[in-house]
């Protein structure tokens, strides 16, 4: 099965939920990761429900923020 992850082609052996895929991709600190699937930003609550399918485009990034105090 072929998907695109952050612009790169990626082969995976089967369909995964978004959360499982982040595990497979060895993404650390998942609680700070935002995921976009086929140009739609996903709610974190849906990570266990939504299945990544063949041909999907997945983008993920880390939260960027901070404070002056």
């Amino acid at each position: 099965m072929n998907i695109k992850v952050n612009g790169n082609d990626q082969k995976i052996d089967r369909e995964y939920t978004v959360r499982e895929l982040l595990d497979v991709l060895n993404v650390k600190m998942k609680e700070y990761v935002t995921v976009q699937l086929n140009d739609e930003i996903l709610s974190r609550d849906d990570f266990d429900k939504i299945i990544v399918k063949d041909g999907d485009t997945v983008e993920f990034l880390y939260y960027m923020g901070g404070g002056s105090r």
Partner: protein
Amino acid sequence: MIILSKNDYKKMLDHAKKESPIEACGLLAGIVDGEKKFVKEVRLLTNIDRSPEHFSMDPKEQFEALKHFRENKFVLIGNFHSHPQSPARPSEEDKRLAFDSKLSYLILSLMEKENPVLKSFIIEDGNSYEEDILIED
């Protein structure tokens, strides 16, 4: 070392002044050659916290910027945010939320209105190390 054009520096400064007293933020991308990081594009982002003491980048704009950088064969060099009322040094929260030690974290202080200060830091395991910035024509 960060190598930044005067135009890009002005873009960051104008954005920070315009947003003040809210913290301003953005992303820097370009080309890395050894220790030298040549900033080729500064992308201004929305601080969705709209706070004078905190910032969170708009994730939708983050995705758009990262795709745009990729299309232009740029790598993400780092991010910047302003400290409207405090010095250009990473706060404890800045350090806690700096997840990537390969990125540069730039802070632009407007504490002295006539003398803004821009500094860049590498943050690793909660420790920050200042890196040089060269602003050139």
